[in-house]
């Protein structure tokens, strides 16, 4: 394995435990924040702030309990703080909706995690053309409009293709795990 950070001879150390928990659940935490604050500009900042708070308050987490849910709580409060600050400039969800979404994600937490492995598999099944489009659209360095003009296409046609690709991915994931069911 790479490097020595996870190698330990002695008692579990706080930082090692934190990094182990954090790395394992970072995708879920990022997903959680993206869902309750749909504006992508804010998600990174909230993720950074929430992660620091998780580290500072790590002593409040009881080893053996569900780290993901604890992290979700911290992320929720951090996000709500942020929402309060930006709500004049953006479309934001109400506190009620945030609570509802948070509770749903907690309930379906394990299921959502399982779907992530299916996601990775489904991405490999995509046509190369579709994968290239995703790479271009989701790359950090350009907006979709810029990307579209580079390909000599209208933004709308790119959006249409993106929507279709995401639907294909969802279908593929659902073929393994089914829909996210209200009864579970």
């Amino acid at each position, binding site marked *: 394995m790479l490097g020595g950070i996870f190698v330990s001879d002695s008692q579990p150390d706080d930082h090692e435990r934190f990094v182990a928990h954090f*790395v394992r659940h970072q995708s879920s935490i990022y997903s959680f924040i993206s869902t309750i604050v749909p504006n992508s500009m804010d998600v990174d900042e909230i993720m950074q702030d929430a992660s620091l708070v998780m580290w500072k308050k790590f002593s409040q987490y009881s080893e053996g309990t569900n780290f993901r849910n604890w992290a979700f709580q911290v992320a929720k409060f951090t996000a709500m703080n942020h929402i309060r600050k930006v709500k004049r400039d953006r479309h934001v969800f109400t506190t009620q909706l945030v609570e509802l979404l948070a509770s749903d994600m907690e309930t379906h937490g394990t299921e959502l995690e399982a779907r992530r492995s299916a996601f990775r598999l489904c991405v490999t099944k995509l046509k190369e053309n579709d994968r290239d489009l995703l790479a271009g659209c989701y790359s950090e360095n350009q907006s979709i409009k810029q990307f579209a003009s580079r390909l000599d296409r209208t933004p709308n046609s790119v959006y249409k293709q993106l929507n279709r690709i995401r639907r294909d991915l969802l279908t593929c994931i659902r073929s393994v795990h089914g829909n996210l069911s209200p009864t579970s």
Partner: protein
Amino acid sequence: MNENSPSSQRIGQLIDRLINDQLTANEFAELANELEHNRSARLLYIETLGLHADLQHNFRHHGDEAIKSVTDELGSLIEQDDAPGKRFPRTDRQSDLHDAGQESNAWSNSGIFTFIAVSVPTVFSIVLAAIIIWFIRSHDWQQSMAGFGMPPTARLSIADLEEIDSAKTAVAVMMKDVDAQWKSNQPKLRIGQSISPGVMELASGLVQIDFFCGATMILEGPAKFEIKDANTGFVHNGKLRVFVPERAKGFTVVSKQCEVIDLGTEFAMDVKANDDAEIHVLDGKVWVKDLVQTEDEKQLLTGGNAVRFDNVDRAKAIKTETGFFVGPAELNRRATQSQSSGFAKWQQTLDELKQDPDLLVLYSFQESSEWDRILANSRPQAGGIGDGAIVGCQWATGRWKTKRALEFSSASHRVRINVPGRHNAMTLCSWVNLDSIDRDMALTHPETEQSNFIHWTVDSNNTGSIASLHLAVSDTVDGVKIREHYNSGSACITSEDVGRWIHVATTYDPDAKRVTHYKNGIKVGSKPISRLQMVSLGMADIGNWPYKPWSEGTEFQIRNLRGSMDELSAFSRALTAEEIQRIYEAGKPEE
């Protein structure tokens, strides 16, 4: 909710538009309203946004499959066993990366961020970097890398949390230092220290700096380098060699004459005091732009080529000279050399100390066998007197790779010694590396059934951020026990010292009638002696307190040293400040 019902189609459409940033205010209100009242709509939304987040996660590295697969492997390894502290076997991951066209082996071993960079997306790197930085600061980095065994953890104090806060502005971290001498106008940058944008001036020596973007730079003094941001640096003068992995493509170094944008993987620059600049590409390719003759087209320079900019020539092709620029292998070699010279210097000092007629005990902690349970007194002709009996402590690495130390990590660990003899004066010196300073700790603690003894301890103020040195001298007069306390005063040992090797010393001077405490060769406190008496070590424990039943449940019960010790000496005279400073200078490890 029926998948194909008009309302679910509408929801799906609105969600798509939300993700694509196409929603109008009315549409947003419609979607939010539907989500609030319809659980199925919410679940569809969560499913879709989750997919969108995973896509962002996945493709932010420009679809680099090799990096993704490493993340997966890390993730699955952790999933296999969630028990903290599990030992992960080292495999030849570096060579797998090499086959995938990634970093070369030499550089992989030299940067901690190779690990973080390949397994964690950029935005999280800042957070983990802050944590790793704290981790590095509280342990000797070179020591850790050498042995892959981490010393027991240090406790997080207020100062450390502030460091994490300030790490938010940091864009790089100091990784290695070989005989670096910094210009006097700036504080010395320590290994593990996070670096924010700004200027650094190296008078001589070598440093390795890891940028959070993933690039690694070796800077050789004399040099003046300015970090502009996580991806850009400005070299006023000096020699540097930069490794830029795939994910840090675009890393730029600017000088007065020209600008170099690296497209991967390795280049070097030499800028003289008169601004003349040479660029050598060791591997991969870079863009070179003339900043003086700005109308010139930027040039692509590939591996094995070099150019020179000066008052006569612009981008003149010259011969590459890779040996001229210190790379990671050479850096490591020099680091090892400088390390072993420190150890050699220390051994010499020890020989000098052994000649001191007032030497009582000298524990050099250089026992050769793991099984050694005797800590030998190196005083010549001691004949075994003063030898210590090791109880529980484990042998570990001391100030240098070749130096041994004893690790004290539990309430049962101690070294029992017996140094008979009463003296008018005394000096105690030790090199210790403390894991924390949140409790009182015994350096030497006597068997208190004796009539004359001393306590030498580190006293904590219980916040974990400051501690003092303390000498207590006890005597029995007409059957009555008397004890005098001499404390160095607060803020003598701080959280900055935790996890580092420090030298502590205390002198009992009957002529000056003073007890003086020193840390790292500098006086940190001094108290007048109110009542002169004889002092002795006698029967005592190093690193612990001979347990007494009455102490159970009181604050006195636990006073064991938590940390390592790799030298302890006692003299029957009070050493001068100069002598103590010389001992410190001769024994201090390279930072």
